[in-house]
């Protein structure tokens, strides 16, 4: 009696989970099957029907040739690499100073980072726009880069948690050997922060890759298109050709999905440590 009751409960759990997974996978599934259809095939078949030929890469060719997707990938890659290199450098530097030294202005510096999270950047963009323009960065890759390199408070808290776990003895014994404080940062602290850095790189790569607002606002120039703005332009020109748009969507979704399946452990760690601060 008791065990049959539990079976029903388990059945319900699995049923709801399967419905959840179905809802999650249904839209991408439809995109995948339609990305391989020719225009005629797309118009004559149901959108839920499988394509005749899964090796029909014609749509993808069009997407890369006409859509300029390759330069979109190139541009976003440059932006990600440059802004993350600087972001990690500055983030670890701030965390080293805040984590290892005591000085009068320390609470103010930390407070400045904390209060900054209250100001949602989407609300101040009207004013930021003028600043970017006056710095001569409008319509250059410099605009997104300077906006992405600033360290945020979650990053600093994550680093500080790690620094607190690095025994101060390590610093002291290095000092006994005559190492400078800069050398301690470079050859002790920075390398030992690698696990946190790895998590941050993955999360920030995904968020920069997926951002639309900043590239749309600051880099309208055609040649500076990144994946999101290229996709928007491509859709604007080919509104009715859903088979082409599906191919473009698929190409743009793939990189982060692949990254996710390989590195999900880091992603879950980063997401939860950020929220449970």
């Amino acid at each position, binding site marked *: 009696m008791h065990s049959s009751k539990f079976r029903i409960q*388990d059945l319900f759990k699995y049923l*709801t989970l399967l419905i*959840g*997974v179905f809802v*999650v996978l*249904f*839209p991408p599934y*439809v995109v995948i099957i339609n990305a391989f259809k020719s225009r005629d095939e797309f118009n004559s078949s*149901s*959108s*839920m029907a499988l394509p005749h030929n899964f090796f029909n890469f014609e749509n993808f060719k069009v997407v890369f040739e006409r859509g300029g997707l390759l330069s979109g990938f190139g541009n976003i890659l440059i932006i990600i690499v440059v802004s993350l290199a600087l972001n990690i450098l500055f983030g670890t*530097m701030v965390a*080293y*100073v805040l984590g290892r*030294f005591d000085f009068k202005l320390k609470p103010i*510096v930390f407070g*400045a980072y904390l209060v*900054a999270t*209250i*100001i*949602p*950047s*989407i*609300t*101040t*963009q*009207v*004013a930021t*726009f*003028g*600043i970017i323009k006056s710095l001569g960065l409008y319509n250059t890759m410099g605009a997104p880069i*300077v*906006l992405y390199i*600033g*360290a945020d408070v979650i990053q600093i808290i994550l680093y500080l948690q790690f620094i607190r776990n690095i025994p101060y003895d390590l610093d002291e014994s290095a000092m006994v050997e005559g190492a*400078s*404080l*800069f050398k301690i*940062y470079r050859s002790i602290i920075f390398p030992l922060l690698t696990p946190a850095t790895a998590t941050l790189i993955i999360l920030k790569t995904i968020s920069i*890759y*997926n951002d*639309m*607002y900043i590239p749309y*606002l600051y880099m309208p120039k055609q040649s500076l298109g990144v994946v*999101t703005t290229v*996709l*928007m332009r491509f*859709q604007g020109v080919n509104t009715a050709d*859903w088979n082409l748009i*599906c191919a*473009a*969507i698929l190409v*743009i*979704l793939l990189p*982060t999905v692949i990254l996710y399946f390989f590195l*999900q452990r880091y992603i*879950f760690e980063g997401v*939860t440590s950020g*929220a*449970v601060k």
Partner: protein
Amino acid sequence: MFGTLSYRKQKTIIIVSFLLIPLILLATFTYYPAIKLIYYSFTNWDGYSPEKPWVGLDNYREVFSNSDIFKVFEHNFAYFAMGIVQNIIAIYFAVVLNSRLRGRNMFRILLFLPYIMNGVAVAFMFGYVFDTTNGSLNLFLSSLGLKHLGETSWLGTEGLVNYALASTGLWRFMGYNMVIYIASLQAIPKDIYEAAKIDGAGSWQTLWKITLPNMKPVIQLNLFLTVTGALEVFDLPFVLTKGGPAGASQTYVQRVVETAFAYNNYGLASAMSVILLFFVVIVLAVQQLVLSRGGNK
């Protein structure tokens, strides 16, 4: 050279040089824009003229007297309502996935998947799902025998469009909430559950008396994220419907961007931004108040 200085001097140099650029960045791109925004909101600057005529509180008066502007928040409400549903679903799945279950890791990975997907690509993907004639949703509904429902214009009907868009948000962010809830569940000490079992508590009782009360701070956090998220919605309606049909899905931030960059009315747009900023700060202040009160108990 540097290494031969005393550690006292080195310390000062390191503090100043390591903080200089990061703090300049923070000041230039966070605090300075915020101050400028407040200043612009008292002018009727057009975005390019050198002079910025001072108009006092006129812009604020305009925002509060022009009922058109505040009405836009009705569209944002849909995102708030769907956000509540999203949290309930997320809590449910978190509790389910925290129990002993075959394949729970796979379920967690799949349910979180939409969160890492590109937002613009997701928006267009749903443009296809919601399409009236070719859309897979209508086709699916028709194949279930719901012929009438299968002819709905999800993105073309005024009363529906915001909920259709907000459900896309639910699809995308439910997994994120769920992962946070799972983490908070795993932080609950196991012995509380064992004690409850010994006392003969059923699974419903355990859920209501132990699990949910222990999740309270995280639930509050997620709910406040839902409120601020709903206030700041921009990309989804911007990409998918351009605010249509006839402005029915325009959100507040979209309206701000349009006022500034399409109508060159930076003064009014700044005032609107300041008001939004003010709302967000109020929400966060309430959150702090609620959270600290919960902590004192």
